[in-house]
C-alpha cells in the first residue's frame, strides 16, 4: 500500500498535495474541509505588505473631512498594520485549534523593511512554518539586478534571525541567473523553495480599449514552466523544492515528483472542483504508485530530473534544433 508521506517546509507531511495560499485558505471552515480532504499542509491566505498600503489609500479617500488632520493620519498605516496583523495572528491561532496538519503562515513582501519582523508573532501564535512570498516584478528600470536580489537575501536573513520555525520562500522566475540565485538562496538555511508565484496578469479588452484582468485561475498547461525548472533546480538547490501553477490532476502532480519536487501546491483546481480534488489526487497518486510498485515517494522522486545543468541546457537546445531547426542530428 503506497505511502504518500513526504518532506517539505522542514516538516513531515502526510501527502505531497498542499493547499496553496489563496482566499480559500483564509477561512477556517474551508480550511477544515481541505484538511479533512487529505491535504498535506495548509498555506494560509497571504498577508500582504501592499494590502496595508491599499487600505490606507481607501481610508484616506473615504474619510470625511472631519478626520483629515495631517499629524493624525501621518503614521496611520501603522494603525492599519497593527489591526491587520492582529486579525492574521488570530487566524493562525484559530486554524491551529481546528486542524491537525501543519499550518503555514504566508507573508507577502515587497521590501525587507520592518514588515518582515512580525514573523515572530506568527511563530508565537502557533504557525508551524512561514512561507515568504517574495513578490517583486522587476519593472522599475532604475533598480539594478543587485538591488533587487538584495531584497531576497535581506528578507530571508531578517526573518531567519527572528524565528526558529522553518522558513520557506516562494519566488518568481524573473532572474537573469535563476539557477545561481536559487542555489544561493537555498544555502541561507531556508527549508524549501516553491516555484513560482503566480502574478496577476493584465489583459486587454479590444472593444472597450481597456486593461482588464486576465484569467485568475491557472490553465492546465501553465505547469510546463515550473516543471522544466523543477527538473533543472532539483539537484542544484540544497533544500527541498515544491512547485505550483497549473497542477490540476494527479498525473501532473506525479510529473513534478518525478522531476524532483517534494510536494506540489494547488489552488485553482480547488476553486473549480472543491476540496474533493485533493482526495481524488491523493487516491490517484496512490493507485499509480501501486501500479508501478513504488512504496514511498522517495522511491521515484527526482528520477527524471535534469541531473546536471550543462546537460539540461544542451539537451534542450539539441531537442529544439531537432524539432524546429530543420536539420537531422
Amino acid at each position, binding site marked *: 500500500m503506497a505511502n504518500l508521506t513526504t518532506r517539505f517546509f522542514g516538516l513531515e507531511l502526510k501527502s505531497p498535495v498542499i493547499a496553496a495560499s489563496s482566499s480559500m485558505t483564509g477561512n477556517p471552515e474551508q480550511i477544515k474541509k481541505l484538511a479533512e480532504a487529505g491535504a498535506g499542509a495548509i498555506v494560509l491566505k497571504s498577508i500582504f505588505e501592499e494590502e496595508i498600503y491599499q487600505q490606507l489609500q481607501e481610508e484616506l479617500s473615504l474619510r470625511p473631512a472631519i478626520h483629515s*488632520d495631517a499629524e493624525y493620519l501621518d503614521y496611520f498605516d*501603522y494603525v492599519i498594520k497593527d489591526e491587520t496583523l492582529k486579525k492574521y495572528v488570530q487566524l493562525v491561532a484559530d486554524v491551529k485549534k481546528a486542524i491537525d496538519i501543519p499550518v503555514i503562515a504566508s507573508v507577502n513582501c515587497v521590501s525587507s523593511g520592518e514588515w518582515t519582523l512580525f514573523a515572530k508573532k506568527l511563530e508565537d501564535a502557533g504557525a508551524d512554518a512561514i512561507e515568504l512570498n517574495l513578490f517583486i516584478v522587476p519593472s522599475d528600470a532604475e533598480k539594478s539586478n543587485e538591488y533587487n536580489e538584495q531584497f531576497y537575501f535581506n528578507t530571508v536573513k531578517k526573518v531567519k534571525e527572528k524565528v526558529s520555525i522553518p522558513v520557506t520562500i516562494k519566488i518568481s522566475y524573473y532572474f537573469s541567473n535563476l539557477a545561481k540565485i536559487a542555489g544561493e538562496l537555498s544555502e541561507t538555511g531556508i527549508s524549501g523553495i516553491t516555484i513560482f508565484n503566480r502574478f496577476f496578469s493584465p489583459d486587454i479588452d479590444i472593444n472597450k480599449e481597456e486593461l482588464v484582468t486576465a484569467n485568475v485561475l491557472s490553465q492546465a498547461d501553465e505547469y510546463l514552466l515550473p516543471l522544466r525548472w523543477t527538473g533543472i533546480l532539483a539537484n542544484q538547490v540544497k533544500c527541498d523544492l515544491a512547485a505550483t501553477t497549473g497542477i490540476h490532476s494527479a498525473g501532473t502532480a506525479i510529473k513534478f515528483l518525478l522531476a524532483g519536487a517534494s510536494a506540489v501546491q494547488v489552488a485553482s483546481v480547488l476553486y473549480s472542483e472543491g476540496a474533493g480534488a485533493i482526495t481524488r489526487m491523493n487516491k490517484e497518486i496512490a493507485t499509480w504508485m501501486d501500479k508501478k510498485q513504488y512504496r514511498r515517494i522517495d522511491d521515484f522522486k527526482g528520477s527524471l530530473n535534469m541531473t546536471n545543468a550543462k546537460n539540461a541546457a544542451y539537451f534542450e537546445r539539441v531537442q529544439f534544433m531537432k524539432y524546429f531547426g530543420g536539420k537531422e542530428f
Partner: protein
Amino acid sequence: MSDQKEYLKAEREKEWRVELRNKIKNRERTDIPRVKMPEMDPLERIKYQDREVNQGLSVAQAQREASRCMDCVNPTCMEGCPVSINIPKFVKYIDKGDFLSAAKTLKETSALPAVCGRVCPQEKQCESHCFYIQKLKKEPVAIGYLERFAADYERESGQMSVPETAPKNGIKIAAIGSGPASLSFAGDMIKRGYDVTVFEALHEIGGVLKYGIPEFRLPNKIVDVEIEILKKMGVKFETNFIVGRTASFDDLKAESFEAFFVASGAGLPNFMNIPGENYNGILSSNEYLTRVNLMNAASSDFDTPVFRGKNVAVIGGGNTAMDSVRTAKRLGAERAMIIYRRSREEMPARVEEVKHAEEEGVEFLNLNNPVEYFADAKGHVSRVRLQRMELGEPDASGRRRPVPVEGSEYDIAADLVIVAVGVSPNPLIPKALPELKISRWRTIEVEQDKMQSSLPELFAGGDIVRGGATVILAMGDGRKAAASMHEYLQQKSQIINHKS
C-alpha cells in the same frame, strides 16, 4: 451666512474703520514688511523648560503690523479660520490703539485667544488666505501674533472682562474632559444661563493644554487665567472624576444632569509595534510630556521622575514630536534628534516649531525610520536601528509614500526614545456606553453640524470625534455643540411645558 456678510459690511462701514483706511494709502501699507517676533536666544532658552520662546510684540510693533491690514471688502482671512473670528475687526481695533476692544472682539468667537494665538497653525489657516500672500505674493499680516498681543494685553492690564451671563435657567449639563473643546463649550453655555459642571479625569484642568503643550510654547498660567474667568462666570469643575467609572451616566442623570458634551480627547498613544519597543527608556510622547508638563518631573521639588537622555531620538514629525524633542533638549540632551520617515517639507508640524527646534540645535534625520531597538544588559534602550527611506508615488492624500531602501539599515546610539506617531481616541466613554455609535476607528460618530451623537442627549466634539486634530478645531466643536445642545434642551423643555 448672508447675515454674516451683512454684519461684516455694517461693521466695516463704521466711521472709525473708514477713518483708519483713509489714514494711509494702501501703497504705503504694503511697503511695510511683516513684523519679526522677538525671540529668546536659542542657546539661552534651552536652559529653561518654562520660558516662552516668543516674547510677544510691543505696542508699537503691534500697531504697525495691524496697519498693514487693508481691511478688505471681502476678508478672505476669515475663510481660513475654523471658527470665523472677525479678524478685520480685531486687527483694526489694534491699529486704532483700542486693545481691550480687540480682545473683546476675539472673545466673541474664541474662548481662549491667548491659547490660539500661540498654538494655531496660522500658516495653514487665516494667514494662508490673507490678501498679501494670495495676491501680492508678500508675507501675510501676522494675524496670530496680533491675536496673542490683544489677549496678553488684556490679561496683563488686569482688566479682563468677565462676560455677562444670562439669568440662571436651572438646567444642569455636564462637559466631560476639560480640554479646549469643553472649556469652549462651558464658556458658551454658562453665558446662556445653564448650570455647567466640567468633569476631568486628571487632577488638573485644561487637558492637552496642560499635559501636552510645553510651557515654552503655552505657559500653564495662561491657561489658568482662562479657567479662572470661567469659574468666575459660575462654571463648576470637578477633577479626579471619570464619567463612566467614578459615576455612570445613569448616576448623573439621576442627579438631574440633562445633557452631556463628551470631549474626552484622543489620549491613547499609538506605538509602532516594532521589536524592542517595550525596553525601558522608550516612552510614548504622551508619557514623556505628561511627566514633564503635568507632573513637573524636570523639577527636583516634584516627586515624579523622568529619564534625561544624552542621545534622544524622537520618532515622528508633528507638533507633538517637536514638543518632545525640544523638551529633551531642555532636559540636557547632547543629541536631540527627530527621526521622520518623510522629508523636511512634509512634516506636519507648525513651521515655526520646526524653525525654533532647528535653532535650538535639534538634528533632523529625515527619510529615516526605526525598525528595531536594542538594549543594554539592564534592559534599557541603547541603540536604534534605522532604515533609510526614499519617496515613492503620492498616496491618496497627495503626500509621497515613503519606501524603504534595501540594505540601508544602520544603528545609532540612543538612551531615550520618544514615540510620537499619533494618538487614538480614549476608550473610556465608548466602553461605558455600549449603545453609543462609534466609528470603525473608535471615534464617536456625530451629526456634523449639530455635534449630536446617536444618543440625543449626548453631544461630542474635539479629538474624540476627529481622531486627533488642533486646539482651534476642538474649540469650534465646543461652540457648535453648545448652540446645538441649547436648541435641543429648549425644544425639550417646550415639549415638557406643553405637556404640563
